[in-house]
């Protein structure tokens, strides 16, 4: 009873969901025009990868997969802090967040 309760979902459903979320993140990264929404799409991709990590950890009964997700979360938190600080300083100097107008490094 207990084991059937926890094991009746094939784990490839989770993997397909993870791939779908990652693809949606890629689409968002490419089509969004506001810098902050582009950044949100990156967070979505990170979350999709975390889901596949947890699924594989569950599949193989390995604790290291979950620890990897823990590290990804910490790095993503640090990345969000620095990224948003960069966004604030870009807004200060250019007064826009439109990615089409922030093209200083474009060839």
């Amino acid at each position, binding site marked *: 009873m207990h084991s059937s309760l926890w094991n009746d979902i094939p784990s490839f459903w989770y993997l*397909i969901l993870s791939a779908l979320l*990652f693809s949606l993140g890629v*689409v968002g990264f490419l089509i*969004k025009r506001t810098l902050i929404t582009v950044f949100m799409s990156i967070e979505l991709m990170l979350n999709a990868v975390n889901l596949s990590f947890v699924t594989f950890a*569950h*599949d193989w009964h*390995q604790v290291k997969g979950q620890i990897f997700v823990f590290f990804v979360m910490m790095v993503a*938190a640090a990345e969000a*802090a620095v990224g948003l600080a960069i966004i604030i300083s870009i807004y200060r100097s250019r007064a826009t*967040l439109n990615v089409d107008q922030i093209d200083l490094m474009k060839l």
Partner: protein
Amino acid sequence: MHLILFLIFAGFCLAGAVNLLLQTHPINSALSLIVVMSSLAVLYLLLGAEFLAIAQIIVYAGAVMVLFTFVVMLLNVGEEEKTHGSKVAKIVGFPAIFVFFSVITTVLLEAQRRLDMLKMGGIQLSDAMTTIRELSQVLFTDMLLPFELTSVLILIAILGAVALARKEGHS
């Protein structure tokens, strides 16, 4: 039970992610991303990762998304300008993203099928739920150095964020 919960929250996840793409105002996108992250926490719980489910809510849905909404409101970001994408982008884009999705799905499922046969060493999880005890035993013994390095990384990130967001001219 498991199946119903999975279907509900996977649906929330996908709906949130699609809504993130369709909304033009950044604050709506941020709120949809909070929905995605909270449903992912429930899916982690279904997969037996109780610590990660809580950490997902505290770190992602809590801290990171509060930071996002804070910045959106601080900068008073308006609706994004509608640009009608070129026709080529639409014709190429949809098949390209479908191909991309198929490739990652194939790779993931193939990895699952292949590595299922391998016998994995190391610490085995006992049953459905990973307790915090099992997780912390590995985290504070085998992974102690990476764990400490993460704290240094976060310290540097805090300093970097302060240095970047500070007004020019103040020293």
